[in-house]
């Protein structure tokens, strides 16, 4: 049994404490915007934000989320698109789109901690894999989102 807040809603789950949050979100809560890419903490497709930090949910057991606040891609834009999402759309970042939820959540957390990232900060902070190679456009989108957030 685990109780936590997902996208602003109090949630109680009767699952094993060691079930990764990824699978609890996807298979138990039908929040499938968060993706499975590697299951080993290597790709970031499963990135969600927990208490403000970008976290790889495939490596985060449900038991460790007890009492915490989880934000997924579904929650990010719930009351209108977030600046990061707007910037992503303006910059035409996604291709196949599969990695993009994780990328957007990682960018959201990066900008929360660093409202003015340089290219080097983006290199360091954005470590998720995109097999379609959308990196140049995501980089532009992050700069754009930084500007949007400031206005």
């Amino acid at each position: 049994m685990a109780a936590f807040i997902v996208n602003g809603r109090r949630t109680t789950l009767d699952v094993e404490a060691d079930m990764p949050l990824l699978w609890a979100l996807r298979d138990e809560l039908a929040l499938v915007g968060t993706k499975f890419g590697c299951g080993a903490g290597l790709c970031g497709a499963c990135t969600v934000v927990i208490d403000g930090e970008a976290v790889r949910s495939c490596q985060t057991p449900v038991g460790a989320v007890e009492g915490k606040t989880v934000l997924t891609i579904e929650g990010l834009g719930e009351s209108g698109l977030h600046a990061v999402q707007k910037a992503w759309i303006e910059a035409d970042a996604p291709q196949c789109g599969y990695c993009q939820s994780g990328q957007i959540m990682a960018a959201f957390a990066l900008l929360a901690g660093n409202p003015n990232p340089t290219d080097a900060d983006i290199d360091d902070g954005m470590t998720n894999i995109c097999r379609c190679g959308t990196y140049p456009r995501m980089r532009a989108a992050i700069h754009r989102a930084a500007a949007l957030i400031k206005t």
Partner: protein
Amino acid sequence: MTIALSRRAFVRAGLTAAGGLAVAALVPGFAAAAIASGEPWGSDAAFGPEVGPFVVVGPDNSITLRIAKAEMGQGVLTALAMILAEELMCDASKVRVEYASAHRNLVDGNVYQSMGTGGSSSVRRSRVFLQQAGASARERLIAAAAAQWGAAAEACVASGGVVRHEASGRAATYGELAGAAARITLPTEPAIKTPDRFALIGSPLKRFDTPLKATGAARFGIDVKLPGMAYAAVANCPVFGGRLRSCDASKVTARRGVLAVLPVTNGVAVAADNFWRAKEALAALPIDWDFGPAASTDSAQFRAEYRAALDGPLADGGGHGDIAAALASPGKRVEALYEVPYLAHAPMEPLNATAHWTADRIDVWMGTQFPEQAIQLAAQAGGVDPAKVTVHNCYLGGGFGRRAVNDELTQAVEISKALGRPAKVVWTREEDIRSDRYRPQAALRMRAALNGDGAPAGFEFTTAVGSITRSLGWGKVENGVERQAVEGLANCPYRAGALKVLVNLRNTHVPVMFWRSVGSSQNAFALESFIDEVAHAAGRDPVEYRRALLADRPDFLAVLDALAERSGWGKPLPKDVGRGIAIHESFGTIVGEVAEVSVRSGEVKVERVVACVDCGHLVNPLTAAMQIESAVLYGLTAALFGEITIRDGRVEQGNFDSYPIARMADAPRIETHFVLSGGDKWGGLGEPGTPPIAPAIANAIFALTGKRIRALPLKNAALGA
């Protein structure tokens, strides 16, 4: 429990889960309100009059355009809709797109022609008939209006979703006319627009699917959830060609959520009520494999075999002139051996499929590049007539060729049939990488004989490579040669006194298939590296030498000259940066790339890539540029890191630690320029950006360090500290 499952019921389930079906694009232009659904599979139900199989007009003037290709990131939903809309003259803000039905294609005389997505062919092969479909629908709407008004069709004009008769001032919307238009047969098909009259084609347009992908609303196969669905994890036999001997199901059946342990094609599956439970149980399952005859093979052995295979027996892969005489001529000789490894596709979305089998019908949800073939696979696995199979194609989380053959689907159908309920099979990343069908391993021996002035008297290219045709069992190899093995070599654009291509098709137990740009992926590496070697042997600049050898190829020359200019070829660079060039034609498109590469403490970093592209015409310059960027990064990953190796018959790599993919910090600046020759040429775009990048990088490293890279990936090259 049995489940009565209709598509509608699933859509309702999807609605609750997804919190909304369609997200309207929030950007200006044609896409302002054009809609792609989060669930893109087409409807079985009639929901408005069809004006031809591609166009449905609703009474509310909504226009549904059916797209018979799969969206895997290349922007095909947008590009093909643009082609239809170019002729249809509809109200763009009322357009929505969805996939055409492969089931309909099967039972209704191939109305959508080939629905396979691959070979960079979607625009190349569909443009004419899509323009025709759009024009035909427009003329039928006009004919319906004309008949209604007793006017001449020639006096009526269609635009913005309305037909008008100027003389009488009458007007009717497409919605009002659709019912009548659907019953009209035109005496002759209208002529389609020529490129000089395009209003939409050729202008950049935001993709319809972007908002869905920025909000998590795009549904991939892996996201599908059906009532009562079982989740299955699969262990494929670790050695290709081996089989399951037995497994001890009793060790795992009591675990929470586990439903069954089942043998499936190529391996064994555990089904549970949650994927993680299935995967954990599978990991705990004792499995006894019969690894089969290939269990003692390894990559060192394969490498030696491919090298040895260059000495024969060799089949004739084409050419011209007298190569023996050229090679016997007294001038300079250049010879080099190039080698490439197997490569995995590793699409970001691991392979998966969901099937719902019943005795008289199978429904499939997955992302497939080849829905017609998926229908056949499901029918075979489920023992059902192919006409009773419906494939609900989803967004594809990357394809790159891998999703053209759906091994995972066979397993999903087997499991659903055995359990009597819907089943979703998901391959873990390890299964995805270890049970791929790979880009073939190859060895290439390149020979040139030069005249006194450095011009080539002859080229002889010999390749030893796996046969994709044989591996897939698709058709027959004639005379020991297949197109994939020689593409890029047999059509070598460089002028030489003689050219001979020799081939030894040789397969190991490792299955091989189409990998983004197919044969050109290895052949361009060999040829464009070799031309660089030859240029240096002749004491000439690589661009200037290529230019001389391309004198009778004005199409290549235009790209080469643009590339030299845009890249600043010959301009000074920082001292730890080198510049390399490569140019290659594949899928009807010429792409030249210049890479600027630094080597610092043995670390290779690609700093900048300039690409010049001649694909003849463009439909959507935005998605075209995105495809070049994507193709460059796909090839860059392979050049730097990509390698599948075999030990004890099995793939050694398993996840992104052992099969690394370029990340943000590895990504160069990429500048794409289109050098369009127009005319009749409509080249592909998904793949042609990939072949030149590996040789451009390798040539840059040579320019910088003097070390010639003749085997990929680069991570294995000792480039010093």
